[in-house]
């Protein structure tokens, strides 16, 4: 049992930190940056993606001996798309406002490189339990970056934290202004660039291949 636990811990650490899907493998930021203007949308997107990653890993890994290798991409996409449809319907039913703000980006979880990448690289070669944990690990790794980007964008761009104003009025009276660029597209690129720089400079961070 002890062995089992350390085995799962290993998978988790790898997904969340050492081989973080966004910062290390450069995957999955495609549909993500657009939802980081606010913490609340980023959180919902993170949860949705983590669940889809975990369950697609579980399902694809359970089916791995049955899937013919030449049509595996289609099968994987079908599994993922079905999970995304379920997620989208749940969001529309219970979190309608946020699902409107997320607009097409919930649907784009289908083409999120992390999900398909993990299905290809991990779920096809490992047992269902490991794949489920791996999906959660990579989902959390992605969520971590997403929440960090959203934190800076919402704080600097509109002075808020989960929609609550946190910068006191007297700071504005002294001449502080919200940085409009943070709520626009360039802000997201800058923040993620700086975060990757930070991660690579910390101990254990791996510096990237040369351009």
């Amino acid at each position, binding site marked *: 049992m002890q062995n089992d636990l350390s085995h799962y811990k290993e998978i988790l650490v790898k997904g969340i930190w050492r081989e973080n899907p966004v910062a290390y493998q450069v995957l999955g930021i495609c549909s993500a940056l657009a939802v980081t203007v606010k913490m609340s949308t980023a959180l919902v997107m993170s949860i949705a993606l983590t669940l889809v990653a975990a369950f697609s890993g579980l399902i694809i890994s359970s089916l791995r001996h049955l899937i013919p290798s030449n049509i595996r991409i289609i099968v994987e996409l079908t599994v993922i798309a079905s999970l995304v449809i379920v997620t989208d319907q749940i969001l529309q039913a219970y979190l309608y406002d946020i699902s409107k703000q997320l607009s097409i980006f919930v649907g784009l979880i289908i083409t999120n490189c992390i999900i398909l990448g993990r299905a290809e690289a991990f779920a096809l070669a490992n047992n269902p339990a490991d794949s489920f944990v791996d999906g959660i690990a990579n989902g959390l790794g992605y969520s971590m970056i997403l929440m960090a980007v959203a934190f800076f964008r919402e704080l600097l761009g509109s002075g808020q934290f989960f929609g609550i104003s946190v910068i006191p009025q007297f700071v504005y009276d002294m001449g502080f202004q919200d940085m409009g660029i943070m709520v626009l597209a360039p802000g997201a690129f800058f923040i*993620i660039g700086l975060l990757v*720089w930070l991660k*690579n*400079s910390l101990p254990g961070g791996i510096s*990237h291949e040369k*351009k």
Partner: protein
Amino acid sequence: MGDLLSLFVNSVFIGNILLAYFLGICSFIAVSKTIETATGLGLAVIFVLTVTSPVNWLIYHGLLAPGALAWAGFPEMDLSFLKYITFIAVIAAIVQAVEMVIDRYSPLLYASLGVFLPLIAVNCAILGTSLFMVERNHTFVESVVFGAGSGTGWMLAIVSMAAIRKKVRYADVPAGLDGFGFIMIIAGLMAMTFMMFSGITL
């Protein structure tokens, strides 16, 4: 006509699918090492987008949209939740066809694009354009123009990025920022530049 031109210019510059909506970034980073492959992939993306967007429009408005099945006697039917799975299947099929054509007529380009050609199928820009087309209630002609415009904007962005990366290849970038982080900063600056176009009205 003016509306269509305006839609085209808008989707190339102001609402650039890559720099304003962050779609298709994975291949944007991975394939922008040389200008030739960036151009090749850009052309493939333009083609796939211009074809998939109207095909998906026809399928959506003929079969999936609420009330679309009235002609078959099911006016109450709303299959729009199936749009994700349908769109991705259409896109995968068209990409497969493009792959075979390129392999047949330009093996060199085929080899240099490598794994990124099949990955067009899961390029968020392609699926995103089809989903935007539904969300923004485009007409059939608008969906063609929007597809072509988004593709052109994507190609413009990736070719510019390849050109910039060629120029900064020997630049002395701080360790740790080198690579992915640096590309993100460049992309941010490019996004700022593209935003300058937003004052233009046609």
